[in-house]
């Protein structure tokens, strides 16, 4: 196996925390001279999923990444859990680091909803950089 460019994987959603994750991932990729793999996935089990990028917002993200100069790849898998998708992406690209955005949530909220972040931490094979969104967001 030849020496390949290192890879940074980031889970992105169009929310403040997704924004924060993306910014940190870009910085991380630049620092490591790495290729950036942006994963924006959807369970695809509802008619509306506003965290799945389509149309204009998708084009804007694409333009923004192009301008940044970091080599990137944008993946939009549909149908599975975000934790599974990220674990797959990390395994497939042998990523150095995974960047995710954390929801600010109360203990009760977490108890009720389970936590995608927790499942990611448990399954992913590489170091994980967890970024919190700006505190302005709701509980």
């Amino acid at each position, binding site marked *: 196996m030849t020496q390949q460019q290192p890879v940074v994987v980031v889970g992105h959603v169009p929310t403040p925390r997704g924004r924060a994750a993306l910014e940190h991932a870009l910085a991380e990729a630049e620092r490591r001279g790495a290729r950036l793999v942006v994963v924006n996935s959807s369970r695809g089990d509802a008619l509306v999923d506003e965290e799945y990028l389509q149309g204009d917002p998708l084009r804007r993200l*694409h333009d923004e990444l192009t301008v940044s100069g970091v080599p990137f790849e944008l993946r939009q898998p*549909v*149908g*599975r859990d975000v934790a599974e998708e990220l674990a797959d992406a990390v395994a497939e690209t042998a990523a150095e680091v995974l960047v995710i955005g954390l929801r600010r949530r109360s203990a009760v909220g977490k108890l009720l909803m389970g936590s995608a972040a927790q499942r990611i931490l448990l399954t992913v094979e590489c170091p994980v950089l967890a970024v919190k969104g700006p505190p302005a967001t709701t509980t």
Partner: protein
Amino acid sequence: MSVSPDPDVSTTDATGSHAAAEHRHPPRPRTGISRGELAMVVLLGALGVYLLLDAANIAVPGSANTIGPRFFPYLVGGVVLATALALGFRVLRGDRGPSDESEDIDPDAPTSWANVGVVVVGFLAHALLINVVGWPLAVTLMFALVAWALGARGVVRPLLTGGVLSVVVWLVFVKALDVALPGGILLELATDWF
């Protein structure tokens, strides 16, 4: 449980990913005789024949100068049979009905009979279970089974959602609206004081 979804890992750029999405929806050729359509026509024809034959067995009471209970069935049977013949003729010439569109339908997906089977079995089971274990429990099991067939994950969430929903609905309809629904022993004891 259900069909495992095909993760659509797309290419590097935005427009590319959508081109891929569009390639998944090629216009489906609408030619040839559909066996399913033919089966529908045959069933319709059989219904027409049955109506005409069985109408002759309807007992007609005395008074002869008015038309009795046979006339309208003959009429309906005739219309049904004629429709079946005409439709059969068209289907044999390759005419296909446009299958119904719906927001949650993928018009190009092949029919998943396994999914249909799971829903049917789940529904049948709940029908037979109602008088045994009560409506809320029977319907909770059906709910979870259908949810799994349609792609829900996990064990806890479908069961919990179905359970909460069925108990709430049961309480509203039985205790507030007086609809008759067996609640099962536990629930009926627990809400007796109501």
